[in-house]
């Protein structure tokens, strides 16, 4: 992805008030992870898997943090049990930012994630926005985080190829 697009993602998180992030690095989104890891304002915890990241974010919320999870489309699948539980049973707000693989323009083998990402979020009752234009990245992250915290729900922002690459 282009560095200026990664900067927009981090800018969106910071303007949204996100001060705690967790996830597992994804090669397609690596610039975002590196920037978060280097920025003390958005403390990044690298976890062993994405379900662990959900648990860490859940606990951080109870400590007053405004957490976001940075998950690959594959990682969303790993996180599903804990994310569904946190969203549906506990009703604790976690912002989830996902670089969208498998959409138009990606290799055929990534098509798996087109079939799992949006239907998976629907199944977990996680509302989401798909961002297709880079100029919408910052605003959408801020709006989704605001709604997550007001509704006490997990909300996802999916950034597709047109917005990021």
């Amino acid at each position, binding site marked *: 992805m282009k560095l200026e697009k990664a900067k927009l993602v981090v800018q969106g998180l910071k303007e949204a008030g996100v001060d705690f992030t967790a996830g597992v690095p994804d090669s397609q989104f690596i610039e975002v992870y590196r920037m978060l890891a280097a920025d003390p304002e958005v403390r990044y915890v690298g*976890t062993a898997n994405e379900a662990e990241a959900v*648990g860490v974010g859940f*606990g951080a919320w109870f400590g007053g943090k405004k957490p976001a999870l940075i998950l690959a489309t594959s990682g969303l699948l790993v996180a599903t*049990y804990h994310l569904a539980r946190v969203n549906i049973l506990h009703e604790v707000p976690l912002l989830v930012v996902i670089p969208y693989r498998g959409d138009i323009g990606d290799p055929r083998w990534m098509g798996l994630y087109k079939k799992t990402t949006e239907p998976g979020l629907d199944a977990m009752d996680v509302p989401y926005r798909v961002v297709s234009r880079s100029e919408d990245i910052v605003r959408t992250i801020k709006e989704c985080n605001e709604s997550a915290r*007001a509704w006490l729900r997990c909300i996802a922002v999916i950034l597709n190829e047109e917005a990021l690459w």
Partner: protein
Amino acid sequence: MVTRLTLLKELASIIPEDLIVVSSIGNNSGFWGQLVQREANLFHATLGMCTPAAFGLAMALPQRKILSLDSDGNLILNMGVLGTIANENPTNLTILVMDNRNYLGSHKREPGMPTATGGKMKLEQVAKGCGIESACTVHEAAGLREKVNMALSKSGPHFICAQIEPLDLDRPGKDKRVPDPRENKYQFAKYIERTTGVEILGGGLGNFG
């Protein structure tokens, strides 16, 4: 071998009121909720979420002591968290694992299927191998008292594996309501807000506020 209930009673008698306890689902939360009347409890952390949640709290509230009241099957589901914790080094976190070596569930009168600790896995060695230097195993109430008191007085992270009976035939009465996850969320969040000054729940109005 000691029972879960005996160790939980011992734990209840020695911990300070402001120690934050995150407990795993099943009998850890069910028994703990019957034994204690305290606000600093986050109950019902499902399989794989107890120690990660306690770790997240420890990161967010470095001035507070956090105890993860976990179990062997629950911890093993997300065991990588021990490596994460070792690297992040939250000095205020203690992990106490009730290791009954089987997937007992909440109400069973016979042992469940074995966990990995029912075979060759030794959690104390796993924790040490992950990089948590303060790791030990206890087998009775006096040992638990000594190790918990040590953990609460010294910088961690600490890991205590408590070997307990495979069955929970020794059970508390059910005369208290253990709060459900949403009820517990509001109670616990308000307690944290009141005692630490952080804002958690917010106004609930979003852009309409």
